[in-house]
Structures are given as structure tokens and as C-alpha cells.
């Protein structure tokens, strides 16, 4: 029997002889089906259990509350919102506030982090050490603590609105926030926006054409000056052509507070400073490691070709460093976005803040938490997707 078994195994008809449960493909599919059924089953069990428990405890469930009047006010809003609007509108206000903080935070943290990261490698001893101190200080303190610090600093150190600091004409800093004038709306302003976008599009086209020409003829094109002229010059020309309708809406002290103009509240400012300063300390290290990852031979070779220091950085080092930098940078962007939920602690009305108020007013915690989780998952996956696309574009192409 034993010998015949060996002979069987060695034969070419092995697959037809083996039992179906010994077939690796079948087994693989079987276990995957088992896993999926187990996961879906547990999810269904948890969901039905939760529904049963809610019904037994007479707790309302479902998303019907989204259409009900919210009844609470939100101090910072990018769109019109009143307490008589619905919970849906309140969630929108919170979501836009989250976008505002995350968007501004990512841009500012990238700029600050890159500067600090480059400074970490500076030949200047003092600058290098200062940048190191910055990183070691802010990276090693808990973010929540930093937020409380900035918030306390902003509303303890700043004066009341009546004694507001006035560093520039019509710009006021007080514990009510930073107030600054903005142009009041005028019908002619839409043409200025159109001119601005035309300028941007024209600059992109010009850049493309300039590269083509440089590749063909070797003549460089002064793209920086040209696009600056287009993007700034065109709107200014339109402004003058439409009759220079430009009046400023200035903040004026009225009763308790400033009216008119625009403002950054202490809550938003503290949150932004906290997130940017904290995340920049990580980004600085990522940038530094990225630059260090480019072999020194590359820099020396570029120098040997006669390239200037700035050009070496721009043309040789950074493009290669970016490949190392982008993946961990994606994580930092995700972290910053998720950390923005700490806004609750200092009273900035982001999405989580609105959801918590909703949870407490309606008592529907599962729905509220579901909304938070779905939204942050969507935001995070979007950021990952965009960064992955960018990463694929700059990655080494295998040839």
C-alpha cells in the first residue's frame, strides 16, 4: 500500500485523485467564505442586539432626528445657520469647520515643518540647534496639553475687546479673537474672481508651453514673473476697469464686541496653532530623513556639474527625497485631521462637537457615533487616495 501511495502522489493525475477537501483552492475559498459569514454574522448579531436593546429600553432610534429643529446655536459657521435649522444643517456646519481646520492645518504644517526640517540640516550651528529644540519640545508634549496652553494664552494674555490691541489700522487683537477688515461685497467683484481664475489657467498653460520650449530650444522661460503678472495683474486691471469699487468692511467696537469685518476666534486660532506646531515637529523629522536618504554622491555629482546650491536642492535632492517623504507625510496629514477632533476640549465647533451635542440632546448615541465614524473614514480615505495618486506620480518608474 505504501509504495502504491508514493506512486500515486508522483503521478500526473494527482489532482483527480485527491479528495476535494485537500484541494488548496477549494480550501482557500471555503475558509474565506467561513470568515465572511462569521464577520457578517457577528455584525448582524450586534446590530439586531442593539436594536432590540434600544426598543426594550424605549430609546428612540433611526436618523429621523436629522430633519428636526436643532435648537442650539453654533458660534462659528462658514454657511448660514440658525437654531431653527435642522440637525442636518448643524452637521454641515460642523463638517465645514472640520474641513477648515484640517485644510488650513495641513497646508501650514507642511510649510512650517519643511522649513524646520531644512533648518535641522543647516550648516549654521545656531539655526540647526534651534530647530532641534523646536522638534524635541513640541513632539514630546501631549497635544491636548498644548491646546489648553495656547487657548489659555490667547484668552488670558489678550486684553478685553474695549482695550484691544491695534497693531495695524483696523486690525484688532483681543480675547474675542483677531478682527480684520474685509472688502465689502460688490457686484463687480465676480469679474475679479473670473480674472483671477483666467490668470491661474493661463499661467498653467504658459508653464507647460515654457517647458516644451525649453526642452526643444534650451531657452528658459521666466515663468515665475509671467504667472505672477497674470495672477495678480489681471484682477487688478479688472478692478480698475470696473470702476474700482473697493470699500472695506471694518471692525468697529459696538456694545460688547466688534461688529463688521471678519474674525478668527481664539478657539479656532488656538486649535490651528496647536495642530500646526505639533504636526510640524513630526513633518520636520520626515523632511530631514527624506533629504538625508538621498545619497551624498548625488549632491556631489550635481555640484561637479556646476549646479548652484539652490538648484541642487530643487532639481536633484528634493525630487528624490519626496519619494521617501510622501508616504509618512500621508500619515501625518491623517493624524492632523483626526487630531482636530480635540477641538471639543477648547470649544471649537467641529463635527465631533456637533455630534456630541446631538447625542446628548436626542440621546441617540449609536447614530451620532456612526455619523462621526463614517465621516472621518471618508475624509481619511480621501486624503490617502489623493496622496497615493501623488505618490504614484513621483515614484520611480520601472522601465
Amino acid at each position, binding site marked *: 500500500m505504501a509504495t502504491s501511495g508514493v506512486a500515486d502522489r508522483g503521478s500526473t493525475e494527482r489532482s483527480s485523485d485527491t479528495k476535494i477537501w485537500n484541494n488548496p483552492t477549494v480550501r482557500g475559498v471555503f475558509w474565506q467564505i467561513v470568515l465572511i459569514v462569521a464577520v457578517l454574522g457577528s455584525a448582524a448579531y450586534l446590530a439586531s442586539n442593539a436594536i432590540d436593546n434600544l426598543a426594550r429600553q424605549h430609546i428612540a432610534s433611526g436618523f429621523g432626528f436629522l430633519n428636526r429643529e436643532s435648537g442650539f*446655536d453654533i458660534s462659528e459657521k462658514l454657511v448660514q445657520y440658525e437654531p431653527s435649522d435642522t440637525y442636518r444643517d448643524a452637521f454641515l456646519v460642523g463638517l465645514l469647520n472640520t474641513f477648515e481646520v484640517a485644510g488650513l492645518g495641513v497646508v501650514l504644517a507642511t510649510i512650517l515643518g519643511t522649513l524646520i526640517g531644512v533648518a535641522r540640516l543647516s550648516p549654521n550651528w545656531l539655526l540647526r540647534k534651534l530647530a532641534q529644540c523646536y522638534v524635541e519640545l513640541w513632539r514630546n508634549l501631549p497635544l491636548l496639553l498644548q491646546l489648553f496652553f495656547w487657548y489659555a494664552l490667547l484668552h488670558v494674555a489678550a486684553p478685553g475687546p474695549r482695550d484691544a490691541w491695534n497693531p495695524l489700522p483696523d486690525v484688532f487683537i483681543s480675547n474675542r479673537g483677531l478682527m480684520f477688515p474685509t472688502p465689502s461685497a460688490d457686484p463687480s467683484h465676480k469679474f475679479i474672481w473670473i480674472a483671477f481664475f483666467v490668470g491661474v489657467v493661463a499661467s498653467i498653460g504658459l508653464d507647460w508651453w515654457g517647458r516644451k520650449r525649453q526642452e526643444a530650444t534650451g531657452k528658459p522661460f521666466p515663468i515665475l514673473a509671467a504667472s505672477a503678472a497674470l495672477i495678480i495683474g489681471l484682477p487688478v486691471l479688472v478692478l480698475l476697469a470696473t470702476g474700482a469699487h473697493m470699500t472695506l468692511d471694518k471692525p468697529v467696537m459696538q*456694545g460688547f464686541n466688534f461688529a463688521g469685518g471678519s474674525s478668527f476666534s481664539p478657539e479656532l486660532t488656538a486649535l490651528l496653532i496647536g495642530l500646526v506646531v505639533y504636526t510640524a515637529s513630526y513633518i520636520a523629522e520626515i523632511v530631514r530623513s527624506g533629504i538625508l536618504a538621498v545619497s551624498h554622491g548625488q549632491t556631489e555629482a550635481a555640484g561637479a556639474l556646476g549646479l548652484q546650491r539652490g538648484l541642487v536642492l530643487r532639481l536633484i535632492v528634493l525630487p528624490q527625497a519626496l519619494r521617501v517623504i510622501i508616504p509618512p507625510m500621508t500619515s501625518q496629514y491623517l493624524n492632523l485631521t483626526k487630531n482636530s477632533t480635540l477641538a471639543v476640549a477648547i470649544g471649537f465647533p467641529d463635527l465631533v462637537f456637533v455630534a456630541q451635542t446631538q447625542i446628548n440632546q436626542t440621546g441617540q448615541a449609536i447614530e451620532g457615533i456612526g455619523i462621526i465614524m463614517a465621516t472621518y473614514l471618508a475624509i481619511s480615505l480621501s486624503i490617502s487616495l489623493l496622496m497615493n495618486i501623488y505618490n504614484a506620480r513621483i515614484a520611480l518608474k520601472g522601465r
Partner: protein
Amino acid sequence: MKRILASAVLTLALGTAATAEAGQTLDNIKSKGVLTCGVNDKTAGFGAADSAGKYAGLDIDVCRAVATAILGSPDKIKFVPLSAPQRFTALQSGEVDILSRNTTWTLGREAQLGLLFGPTVFYDGQGFLVKKSANIKSAKQLSGATVCVQPGTTTELNLADYFRANKLELKPVVIENLDEVENAFFTGRCDAYTTDSSGLASTRVSKAPKPDDYVILPELISKEPLAPAVRQGDDQFYDIMRWSVFALLQAEEKGITSKNVDAMLKSDDPDIKRFLGVTEGNGKSLGVDEKWAYNIIKNVGNYGEIFERNVGKGSPLKLERGLNDLWTTGGLMYAPPAR
């Protein structure tokens, strides 16, 4: 906050029938030998923990009364400090058995959140605390003012309602942590701080750098009946909670105090005899010890004693009895007959 909320949601999802089965709450309390009570730990006079971690306040004493009725001792309690947004989820999910945390009794909270409120233990109304130097005499002058408020409270909704109704412009600063929101007000981030007027009195006395620099505006903009709450589904536990509070009122009405309760055992008044369990029956009906009311009064005192010691003349808050006086002396406190 996140931890409690997350565990609460998990309990709702994972928990089998356990937390909601009829009679289960009471059985749980008896088998564990401890009443879990959700409280405030930062509002002096109502619920606050001292430096040694010992809780004191009017809401705390309500918990002690309920624990005494069920377990015979005012100390068989586990206090769980809860923030305003945490409290209902903690109660719904069974993290606490009873919520006694200056909570306003409203229709929505009973009907939507699946709760039952006991008798009102403090009749309150929402007010505003402002700096004296701001020279504000009425809440109607607050248009454009920045107002500090805690989220997820009836306070937040009343504030929006009041400013809407009076066509005033509102700039709320909403912070969850009580210390942080009070700090924001005292450092000048806000022109006014709003909550129940009892809470304002407590904040003014216990947190203000100089209490005399701050005044409470005369307007009360809402009705805030503060009451303890339990989950729906265990009617017997609910009854015990209600009658424990009524016992406090009944004792004050009959002149029974923690000092004279032993002497009162010899009283000839049939009402007092029934109340203190000398004539048996009430305890059996409720499913607790016949001496339940005696134990409560002996250990915790009657409502008047609790009031004076925590928020009245004997406390830093020095609140008047006002609406919280007995019905016999012009207030709203009234207990149904205990028979």
C-alpha cells in the same frame, strides 16, 4: 468622555437583555451590595468631591437616601462623576443605576431617552452671571454678548431660545469641561456665563477670584426642575427611588429630623408610626426593609436638613428656600401620603 461613551455604545450593542429586564436593576444592586450613582463632582452644594475624594451635596444626599432605603446604609454607594454630555448614555447603558446630577426633567428626556424622572428635588431656573463692572442690569441688554455655556444641556437650548425670542444677537462659547468653561468666563473670554441659577451661585462662591465682583442678573429665563432619573424597565426600583425622595419631604413636614427620629418612634401619630415602620406595611409594599424611612432620616436627615447643610444658610451658597420650601410654608415641595 470618549471612553465612557464608547463603552456605553458597546454595552448597548453587546449587552444581552441583562440591563433592561424587569426587576434586574434592583436585583443587581442588591446582589452587588452597592448602588452606582452618576453624579456631578464639580458643582459645590449639589455634587462635589472634596480633596479627599469624599462626595457631598444635595444630589449626593438623594443618592444616599436611595442607597439607605435599599441597602440600609448611606455608604454603600459607588459614585461615578459624569459630565453633562456623558450622563444619559451612562444611565441608558447601565454604567450607573441612578442619575442624580442637577438634571432638568423634560418631556424629551423621558420619552426619547427611555428614562423616568423622580420627584423634583430642586426647583431652579436659568440665569446669567456677569461682571459687576460691566454695568449690565438685565439679560435683555446682552445683545451681541459672548456667552459661555456647557454643551448638551437644556441651558444651551434655553439660551438660544431666549436670544431668538428677544431678537438679541448671540455669540456662544461652548465648552464641555465645567472647569474650562468657568475659567473662560473668569478670564474674560465671555461677557456672561449661563446655567441654572443654583449653579451660578455655586460657581460665584466657589470659583470666582472675588465673588463680590460678579452679580447674577435678575431674570430667570426658564423652568429647571432638577430631579433624579432612572432607566425605564424596572418599576419597583423606580418606586423605591421616588418614595425615598418623598420620605425626605414627608419627614420635614412631620417635623422628623435626624436628631429626633429615635424619639419619634414612640410617637402616637398613626401617620408617623406608619412612616417610620412602627406600624408595618409600607416597607413590604415597596419591597424594602420596614425601617427604610427611619434609616433614611437617621442617616441622611430630612429635606430641610439636607437643603440647609448643602445649599442653604449652613453653606457658602446661602440660597433661600423660595420655591423649594414645603407646600405648607409657601413652596412647591409636596409629598403624597405614605400609606
